[in-house]
């Protein structure tokens, strides 16, 4: 009886259209926010914030950006690492070349630049589909890497190739301490996630899903495929660009093209699939899994086997466990961690009388 929508009667349209129509979900959301805003910063160590929470939020945002494209609009992209790079370098250039530009504006501009790039590389999506579309986005990945590394202008004509990002200053407030940087990222993530949540429930979200499920049929009922797909590319790469800027400015504190290579694109894809296609929450669950699990495995071996004299085999065993767990989770629940959550809710709804 803990989780049940029965008895929650919606009396207004507003209530019916709320983001969290079920009270328990609403309470759940409040709890998550309370934990994220109050509990984590006060309880977690600097290490946990720096090494887990900040990158987790950024990767969650990146995964959400791909999930919008893949999970909602059905367009596979292996270029999101490249889009993040565009965002990072765009933000770097805005921040260093236009003095006194508010950093939030700067990030948003970077997002827009990335969106433009994303839309450009999304053009082939009208004709090319599925895994074949992946090639277009792979080309995007490599072309972006090539352009950024070929023209030193992007890296501020720096002889070193990699560049440090400027300090984050907002209205005279220097975002420098770990907790401050955590809030900075959290702010972006919460606002953008709520916006996305609303977007996927709106008519654009529905037309994405229609395109995903059967684009020819969607076209027949009056959805313009190219426009819809391009909006998905645009929104998705906008988010990816912001995630990239956050990654460079807040996490790495450096712009280095090698941090946005193909493997990061793959990682984002893993997060989306493991988290659950077409679930915003799944993006974050997936990000947690893909980003944190290897570190946790590593910490576990360090804890239990001591921090010295690891054999190569143990390092490789971590890979094996990680790969094994991916397969294990897929076998147990192919539709991702988010679906696991839904199934659990289903069980709670029936509890204590299953059938």
């Amino acid at each position, binding site marked *: 009886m803990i989780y049940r929508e029965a008895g929650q009667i919606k009396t207004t349209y507003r209530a019916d259209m709320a983001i969290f129509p079920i009270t328990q979900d609403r309470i759940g959301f409040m709890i998550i926010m309370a934990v994220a805003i109050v509990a984590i910063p006060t309880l977690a160590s600097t290490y946990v914030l720096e090494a887990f929470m900040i990158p987790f939020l950024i990767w969650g945002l990146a995964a959400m950006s791909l999930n919008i494209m893949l999970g909602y609009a059905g367009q596979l992209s292996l270029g999101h690492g490249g889009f993040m790079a565009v965002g990072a370098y765009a933000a770097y250039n805005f921040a260093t070349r236009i003095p006194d530009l508010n950093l939030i504006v700067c990030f948003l501009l970077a997002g827009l630049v990335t969106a433009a790039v994303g839309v450009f590389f999304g053009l082939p999506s009208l004709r090319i589909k599925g895994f074949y579309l992946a090639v277009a986005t792979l080309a995007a990945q490599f072309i972006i890497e*090539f352009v950024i590394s070929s023209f030193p202008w992007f890296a501020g004509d720096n002889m070193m*190739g990699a560049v440090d990002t400027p300090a984050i200053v907002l209205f005279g407030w220097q975002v420098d301490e770990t907790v401050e940087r955590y809030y900075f990222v959290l702010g972006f993530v919460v606002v953008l996630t709520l916006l996305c949540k609303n977007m996927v429930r709106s008519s654009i979200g529905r037309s994405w899903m229609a395109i995903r499920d059967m684009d020819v049929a969607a076209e027949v009922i009056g959805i313009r495929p190219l426009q819809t797909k391009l909006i998905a590319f645009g929104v998705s790469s906008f988010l990816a660009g912001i995630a990239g800027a956050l990654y460079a400015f807040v996490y790495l504190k450096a712009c280095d093209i090698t941090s946005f290579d193909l493997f990061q694109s793959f990682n984002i894809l893993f997060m989306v699939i493991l988290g659950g296609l077409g679930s915003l929450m799944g993006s974050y669950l997936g990000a947690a899994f893909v980003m944190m699990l290897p570190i*946790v495995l590593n910490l576990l071996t360090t804890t239990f086997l001591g921090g010295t004299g690891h054999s190569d085999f143990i390092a490789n065993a971590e890979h094996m466990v990680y790969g094994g767990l991916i397969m294990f989770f897929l076998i147990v629940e192919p539709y991702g961690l988010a679906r696991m959550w839904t199934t659990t809710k289903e069980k709670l709804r029936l509890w204590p009388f299953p059938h």
Partner: protein
Amino acid sequence: MSARKLGLALLAAGIMAGTLSGTALAADKSDPNKEQFVPVLVYRTGPFAAGGTGMPGGLLDYFALLNQRDGGINGIKLVWEECDTGYKTDRGVECYERLKAKGAKGAPFFLPMSTGVAYAVMERAHKDKIPNVQIGYGRTDSSDGRVFKYSFPMLTNYWSQSSAKLTYIAGRMGGHDKLKGAKIVNLHLKHPYGEETRPVWDKMAAKYGFQVTHIPVPWPGIDQKSLWLQIRKIKPDFVINRNWGVSCTVPLREAARIGFPRDRIIGVWWCGAEEDAIPAGKAAVGYITAEFVKIGQDVPVIQEIFEHVYGNMKGNLSAARVGSVFHNRGVVWGIVMTEAIRLAHTKFGVGPMSGEQMQWALENLKIDAARIDELGATGLVPEVSMSCFDHEGGGRVRFKQWDGKKWNMITDWVNSDESLVREMIEASAAKYAKEKGIAPRDCPPTGRFAKN
């Protein structure tokens, strides 16, 4: 169903244990005031594992030797914790955050083990006051210690190396004046690390009147046929091999295919390990690379490691790798870092050192020939003379050649073109200082830069 629950439980347990382990490890049994904690980054898996095990292996072998033979440094035992980055920058940052506060006084210094990690922790290390030490790699312009207080690209940096290579090439051609009209191809990885030496080659080409062609190798560089077809058209006198991992080996094969002499390929030291030459087989014979240590087992300190460390089954590598390129570099790192700890003890008293104290020690470190002999490291380590002005403290390079079985040292220490390199470093560092709003410290030129 039970399997699913088990999975979730495992995940939950994993995350719990992960977050808790930070505290769990701090509670060590032995007296923390008698120990010097050192963070050690490794990468045991992936395409660069040869270096990622070899160098930490040598470093730890030397630490083990000191613990075993001398009972540590002035009675302070060295203890360490490894962290595997897999050669990924983000994991490197995680490792930095994980290890920076361990030990009695936190990490005394940090060896990032990759250029990407070196960049990513540059600012963090500065803020945390932990010296970021990159020996033989890293951010070249941080040799200007006035701007980069906590970054130490020690022994020699890439620009020094490139100028030393030119000195070597000039020697082969019969003097710097013979360089005029010569052709050199700079075959480099298309990657910030690979591109970093382009400006110095351009500058030297202008100075000495030779022609340099930069040919970027697209990652991962497993097939460089088209590049070598271009090289064949150019007919260069020398080819610089500035790659990393497998892309170091491929040029040797390609050169053999078109009959380009291998002793005219001069590799960066990161293309100069056994692991780079062996896979090329016969194609590698004659290949020459730069080096900043001495290779082989015929050094007393390496012998001692063999005896004390491997003799007591405390070795960190398979015994066959002792004396190999990566291992000896690791030993040299160990020597340099422990000498700095020793120096710190003389000023701050015997005990675990903090990052700030090590910053002082590294800036004042001098290892002269007499001390090197005393350490049993004659020829293994170049002389070091650090200062606030000069965070490189050396800049000398040796060259070695592959004979099909092993590396043979073919030159003694070759000097770099100090004034040319220093000028570029200062320009780049000044730009950084301006961007970051750092006021450079006021330090007088010292050692090799002192104006007499």
